[in-house]
């Protein structure tokens, strides 16, 4: 049995070749090997959503996916949302305008679930947003601001 495997993965548009311990999750590897700490660790059982990233267009809990499983995949983390020059995307702007981040720890996960939702459903209803982000806990409970931000971003994208 091998302890590590080499994987090829595109993270936020950059191709990377990484040697990963076979038992490490995508979350571990993003934070510790790639050095992208925007993706947060909390429950590590796929219940809180703080570690949500987008893998090949789908939002996933990176604590539940082994890093070796993303071999050949495209991964987007919260660091990949803004433009290279630091310009925020409409969703990030809306989060700030609506006061969505409080302590901010859940926000990377909320943003990734919201981005995946908007990518699939550009005109979501309130219920769509609640459903789409139901797996992302916010103990500051800024749910109404988060929902308002997602709807506002959708509105901006429509214009």
């Amino acid at each position, binding site marked *: 049995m091998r302890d590590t495997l080499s994987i090829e993965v595109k993270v936020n548009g950059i191709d990377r070749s990484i040697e990963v*311990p076979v038992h490490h999750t995508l979350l571990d590897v993003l*934070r510790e090997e790639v050095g*992208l*700490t*925007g*993706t*947060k*660790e*909390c*429950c*590590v*059982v796929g*219940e*809180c959503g*703080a570690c949500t990233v987008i893998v090949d267009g789908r939002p996933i809990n990176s604590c539940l996916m082994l890093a070796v499983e993303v071999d050949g995949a495209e991964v987007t*983390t*919260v*660091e990949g*949302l*803004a433009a290279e020059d*630091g310009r*925020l995307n409409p969703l*990030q702007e809306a*989060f*700030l*305008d*609506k*006061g969505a*981040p*409080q*302590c*901010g*720890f*859940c*926000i*990377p996960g909320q*943003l990734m679930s919201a981005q995946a939702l908007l990518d699939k459903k550009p005109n979501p209803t309130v219920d769509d*947003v*609640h*459903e789409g*982000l*139901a*797996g*992302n*806990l*916010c*103990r*500051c*409970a*800024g*749910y*109404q*601001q*988060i*929902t308002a931000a997602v709807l506002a971003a959708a509105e901006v994208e429509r214009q």
Partner: protein
Amino acid sequence: MSGDGVGASARRVGGYGRVTGHQEYLADITLTDMLHVKLVTLDCARARIISIDKTAAEQVSGVRLIMTAEDLPHPMPRFGPQFQDRPVLATGETKYHGEPIAAVAAETKDAAEAAAKLVRVDHEVLVDGVFSVSRALDPTAPLVQDPDLRPDDPLANTNILREHHFGWGDVDSQEADLVVENTYEFPMVTHFAIEPHGFMAAPDGDGIAIWSTIQHPYLLQKTIAKLLDLPLAKVRVFAPDPGGAFGGKQNPKLEPLVAYMSLRTGRPVRLILTLDETFQAVRRASTEIRVRTGLNSDGTLVFEDFESNFLIGAYVDIADRVVTKGNYLAAGPYRVPAVRIIARGILSHTTPSTAFRGFGIPQVTWARESNLDEGARALGIDRLEIRLRNLAEQGEEFVPGDTPADGDWQQAVRRAAELLGWDEPLPAGRGRGIALGLKSGPTTGLSYSTVRLLGDGSVLIYSGTSDMGQGARTVFAQIASQELGVPLDRISVIMGDSTVVPYDQQTSASRSSVLMGTAVLRACQDIQAKVRTMAARLDGVDESEVSVEKGMVYLPGREATVTETLVTGLGPLGGELVGNGEMRKDKDLEHPLGGSALFFEFNATAVELEVDPGTGEITITKHMTVSDVGLAMNPLQVTGQDEGAAIMGLGHTLMEHYIFDEEGRIRNLGAIDYRIPTSLDLPLELRSDSIENADGPGPYGVKGISEGALLAVSPAVGSAVTEATGLIIRDLPLTPQRVWEAMMERV
């Protein structure tokens, strides 16, 4: 209102980092040559430790230290914000499920985790643990704390830590038309900050550096300095913005352990708790509160009589203060001629309880408000009316010797009722409830701030407050923006490094806008005075002819901005102006709490709901929360905090509670089995509103706000359930199971 000054819903200062992933929380910081720590615990609450065998664990490659009680100074160093009772590691006996017995430091997290599992702890499970109030008070129960830890304490041979007596008037001589007596229970719940607690330590020259997710970095500095016998100047505390705290991160917990491990290994060490371990580290006190309410037939309160038992856990942490501060205001915002309060903090073999948003008030409010409703129903008086009839008027000294009512509370109550539509016909199958919450703000305080107006007119604010989501940075920056006329994007707020930032007593009790806010305001005023001197010198006029206000300098015949004056006044060498500000509220030793309330947090919560007759599930159709905030310095942030507090209140009201087995193990550790509100658990309509009469003691009339909307959620919901179903349930949470069982019992 747009803009950057006070009253504007400005974007959060620190928001950019929070939406880009660049905000650095503790676990995002790595130190060169760092060791990883894993705790060794037992899967039982109370056990006698017979021996610890490190042999197998030491064989794991990369293990550098396995620390046990034997490796620490003797006697075991102990610490705590009120009592020095918490050991660095368990010694002799574990007192609660998950209490650390040993800790492994290794080169990798994997190695630390593997080795921790191999540390063999020979132990005997002691099955007669104390997990309830009734068992704790049973004379045959074991003592949770060694009486030797409580010298000169007449209660040392009981499980009662302290019994406090408060009140006024003579309850026993009062004659009431109706006396309602009931007992109300409140569950153990946990903070569940999404960021688990984390700690790091590293040798730092001839001192030590500590990193912690703590709310009170200066208390941590004092604690470590005392344990290690170091001067404060040699203990550097880094306190990155906590990712949620809610009181759970107020006081030191495992920082002393990592400090000792770092000194022993000579290397940086890091311990990040799992969420499960966080559940075992902090919780709210569960309570059993018996209340007798005396009323006249017209609904006037005659007396309130409380016997309040708080089950506080194995070590005190700040729980005795929760007991006193929570119970002192048990009679709430009402005019009551006679009040008697007996409040006990009771030790148990459970996770030490600590501060948690509301600080004891949600528990007493559940009892008082629910009992008042039972009285109102018995007398046939409207539940809104009975509250308005007894509510203290602004300026009324409703608690003798304490701060008089500092707001127009009637206004808040009427507003909540109006938003809900209290007087409108009740839709079939629904119930409504309204309840009032009142909490003392800080009783003492000490905050310093330094503000630097740099040569280009940009600003640095230094504040020892922790911004854990309440938005302290934004508010302080808005104050400086208002006073110095500088836009927010030219202001930075520096926090979280004890060698850089001056002292702040603590971040708790919703104090920061008022206390640190005043210190920041005074630092800005200090700069204004220097700008005034500078302007007078530049124009060759007397200082008395110059005034500085809201970023503008007014001189005879002309006016200029602060920045223009600064740039000219500093001259070719440049430089800066430095201002200092201080705000203190000293101890009052005559007062039962050591000080009167700096302000009150007052909230009125009104809800409407329906109960599914088949499942017992509660759907909140409307939830209106109105707080008296004095002034909303940033209305967007006030709304966020208010709604968040309201939803957190729904958590302990509807779903949250620890579940124990008979041996005191928490059976629902972690996010799968312990449910907190999600986006699918929200009221169908949730609105918060603020009463703003600028009558608070802080800058521009502000009061603290971040706890109010949580205080009265439970009794408002409970009362509405009673109206909807006819059931009276006096135990939380109101889970579908509990409600359904109550419906079945009635059948």
